[in-house]
C-alpha cells in the first residue's frame, strides 16, 4: 500500500477506535469497515486521487454514519443510566441567553469585533426588558438578531481582514470582497448556504484567473535578474573588478547572460501575444511592475513587502531597452555600465527583513487588521462565532 494512503487509512481507523464504543454490534461493524477500508487502500495507488475516490466509493459516508452511530449509542446509554427526567419549566430569557453570554465573554476582549459585540449587547438589553421568553424572542426576531450574531460578526471580521490586504492585489482581495457581498445579502442560514455555494464557484473561477497576468511578469523578471544579476552581468563585472577570474566561471556567467537574454525576449513575446501587454505597459502598471522583482510579504495578508532596492526596477528597464531589445554585444553591455549610478543590488537579509517587518507594523499599527491581530494574540481565541461559518485568517 502507498505509505501516504496507508497513513490516511490509519487516521480513519484510529478515529473510530478512539471513540471507544462499548456496543458489541457496532464493534463488529467497525471491524468489517476496517477490512473494507484496507482492501480499498490496497486497490488505490495514487494519493492524489485517493480522497475523491474514497468519497465516491461511499466509504467516507459509511465512516460518518458509523461515527454518528457510536455517538448516538453512547447518548442512549447515558440517558438510560440517568433515568426519566421531570418536565423542565419554561426557560427565562436570562437562562436562554446563558450560552450567548459565554460566547460574548469569550470575544469581548477583542473590542475590534465591535460589529458582532454590538449585536450581543442589543440581545442582552432586550433580555433585561423581558421576563417572558416568547415576548423576548418576538422582539429578537423583529431585528433578526439571532442571525445577525453570526452575520454581523463575520462581516466585521471580513472588513477587518480586508484592511490587512494589498488592495492592488485583485487575486487576493477577490474572495473577501465577494464574501462580504454574500454575507450582506444573507438573511438566514439557508440563504448563506446558497450564497456560499455560488461564491465557491465564483471564487474558484475568478481568483486564480486574476492571478494569471502576474505569472508571466514573474517569469520575465526571473530571466532579467539572471541576465543582469550575480549569475550574469554582475557576476562577470565582479570577476573582472577583483581579478578573481577563473575561465570556466567567467564563460558560465557570460553564457547565462546570452541564454537569459534569449529567454527574456521569448517571454516578452509571449506576454504580448497572450495578454497584449508591452514592457512599457508592465512598467506603468502599479501592481504588475513590482512582480519583476523578487519580493516577499512582511506583514498582514500581503500588506507590505520587502524587495530589492527600487532602483533595480529602473536598472532592469534600462537593461531591457538598451541591451536586450537592441541585442548589443556582451562587451558593449559591460562598457556602458559606469555611466549608470545604480550600484549593485541585493535581496534583504534576515535582519533587514525583520527591520522591514517592524517598520511596516509601526506604519500600519492603527489599521483594524493589525489591532485585530494583536487582540487575537492577547485573547488567544479562535476566529468566528460558529454555525459552520468560521473564518480562517
Amino acid at each position, binding site marked *: 500500500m502507498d505509505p501516504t494512503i496507508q497513513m490516511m487509512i490509519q487516521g480513519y481507523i484510529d478515529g473510530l477506535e478512539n471513540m471507544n464504543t462499548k456496543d458489541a454490534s457496532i464493534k463488529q461493524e467497525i471491524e468489517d469497515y476496517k477490512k473494507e477500508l484496507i482492501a480499498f487502500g490496497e486497490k488505490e495507488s*495514487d494519493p492524489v486521487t485517493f480522497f*475523491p475516490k474514497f*468519497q465516491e466509493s461511499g466509504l467516507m*459516508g459509511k*465512516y*460518518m*454514519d458509523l461515527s*454518528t452511530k457510536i455517538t448516538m449509542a453512547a447518548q442512549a446509554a447515558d440517558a438510560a443510566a440517568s433515568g426519566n427526567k421531570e418536565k423542565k419549566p419554561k426557560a427565562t430569557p436570562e437562562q436562554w441567553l446563558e450560552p450567548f453570554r459565554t460566547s460574548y465573554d469569550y470575544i469581548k476582549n477583542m473590542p475590534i469585533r465591535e460589529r458582532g459585540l454590538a449585536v450581543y449587547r442589543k440581545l442582552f438589553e432586550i433580555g433585561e426588558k423581558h421576563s*417572558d421568553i416568547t415576548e423576548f424572542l418576538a422582539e429578537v*426576531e423583529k431585528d*433578526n438578531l439571532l442571525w445577525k450574531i453570526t452575520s454581523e460578526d463575520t462581516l466585521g471580521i471580513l472588513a477587518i481582514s480586508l484592511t490587512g490586504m494589498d*488592495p*492592488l492585489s*485583485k487575486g487576493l*482581495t477577490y474572495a473577501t470582497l465577494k464574501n462580504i457581498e454574500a454575507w450582506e445579502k444573507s*438573511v*438566514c*442560514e*439557508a*440563504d448563506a*448556504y*446558497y450564497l456560499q*455555494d*455560488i461564491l*465557491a*464557484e465564483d471564487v*474558484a473561477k475568478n481568483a*486564480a*484567473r486574476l492571478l*494569471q*497576468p502576474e505569472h*508571466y511578469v514573474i517569469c520575465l523578471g526571473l530571466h532579467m535578474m539572471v541576465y543582469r544579476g550575480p549569475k550574469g552581468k554582475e557576476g*562577470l*563585472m*565582479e570577476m573582472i573588478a577583483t581579478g578573481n577570474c577563473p575561465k570556466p566561471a567567467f*564563460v558560465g556567467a557570460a*553564457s547565462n547572460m*546570452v*541564454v537569459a537574454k534569449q*529567454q527574456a525576449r521569448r*517571454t516578452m513575446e509571449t506576454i504580448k*501575444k*497572450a*495578454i497584449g501587454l508591452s514592457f512599457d505597459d508592465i512598467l506603468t502598471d*502599479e501592481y504588475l511592475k513590482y512582480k519583476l522583482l523578487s519580493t516577499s510579504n512582511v506583514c498582514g495578508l*500581503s*500588506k*507590505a*513587502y*520587502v*524587495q530589492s*532596492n527600487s532602483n*533595480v526596477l529602473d536598472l532592469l528597464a534600462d537593461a531591457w531597452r538598451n541591451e536586450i531589445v537592441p541585442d548589443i554585444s556582451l562587451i558593449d553591455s559591460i562598457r556602458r*555600465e559606469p555611466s549608470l549610478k545604480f*550600484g*549593485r543590488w*541585493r535581496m534583504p537579509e534576515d535582519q*533587514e527583513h525583520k527591520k522591514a517587518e517592524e*517598520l511596516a507594523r509601526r*506604519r500600519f499599527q492603527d489599521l483594524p487588521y493589525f489591532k485585530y491581530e494583536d487582540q487575537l494574540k492577547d485573547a488567544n481565541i479562535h476566529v468566528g462565532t460558529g454555525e459552520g461559518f468560521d473564518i480562517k485568517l
Partner: protein
Amino acid sequence: MDEMTTTKELYGLYVSRFGSCQRTPYQADYYRKWLDLLNSCSSNEEAEEKSKENGLYTAGASAVAMDRIFANKQAAMEMGWTDVAEFCDEIIQKIKADPYYTFTHTSLWADLQAKKNGWIWTIEAFHRLFVDFREFDDTRTDPDRAIASIANDLKMLSKPSSDFATLAAMPSFRALIDCSDEYYKEFTDTVLKAAAGHLEPIQWSAQSKQDEIEDLWNKRDTLTEECRQWYSQGVKPPCLRLSPESADGKYELIDIE
C-alpha cells in the same frame, strides 16, 4: 399582551421572514402551519398537545435541514450542477419520508460536499493545467516534469466532463483563462500533446555567441577600470514597499538603511 397573542406574533414574524426569503420554503411552511394551529386553539398548551399528535412538534429540525438542502439545490441549478441538484431532491424526499433522516444519516452532508467537489475541483484543476502549461511554456526546458504535472491534473477533471478537450471547448472553461485565443490554442494543444506523452523542448544554448564570449574573455583586462568603478559603488539597501489604502493608490517605497 396575553401569552397566546405574543406566541402568534412571534410565529407571524417567522412566517414573514422565512416566507420572504427564496431559500426557506420549508421553514415558511412549518411556521405557517404553526400559526394556523395556534389560530385554531384557545391556548398554547392545547396547540402544543395537538402539534405532538400531528407531527408538527418535531418537524422544525427537518424543515431547517430541508431548507439547507433546498438552498444547495437552488445554487446547483443556477450553476448547472445537475447531479448535485438531483441528489438534493433525493435527500429532501428522504427527509420528508423520515423526519429523523438527517440525524441518522449525518454523512449526507459529506456526500453532498463530495458531489459539489467534483465541479469545484475540475475548475481548480483546469486552472492548474494552465499553470503547468505556463511553467513549461516559459522556457520549454523540462518536458518530463510538465508531462507528469499535466497528467496529475488531468486526473482531477470530472464535471461536467473528464475529457480535457471537451471542457476546453466550453465557453465557461474558456472564460477561466485570461489570454488571447491564439495563446489559448497553444495551451490546449500543449496539454493534449502532454497527455499523449510527448512535448518538444527548446534547446537553449550560448553556442551562437561563442565568438562574443571569447572576445569578452580576451578583452577583460581592458574593462578592469569600468568594473572597478562599478564595484566600488555602495550597495543599495533593500526596500520596504507599503500598500496604499485603496486599489487606485500607489505603493510607498522606503529604503531599509
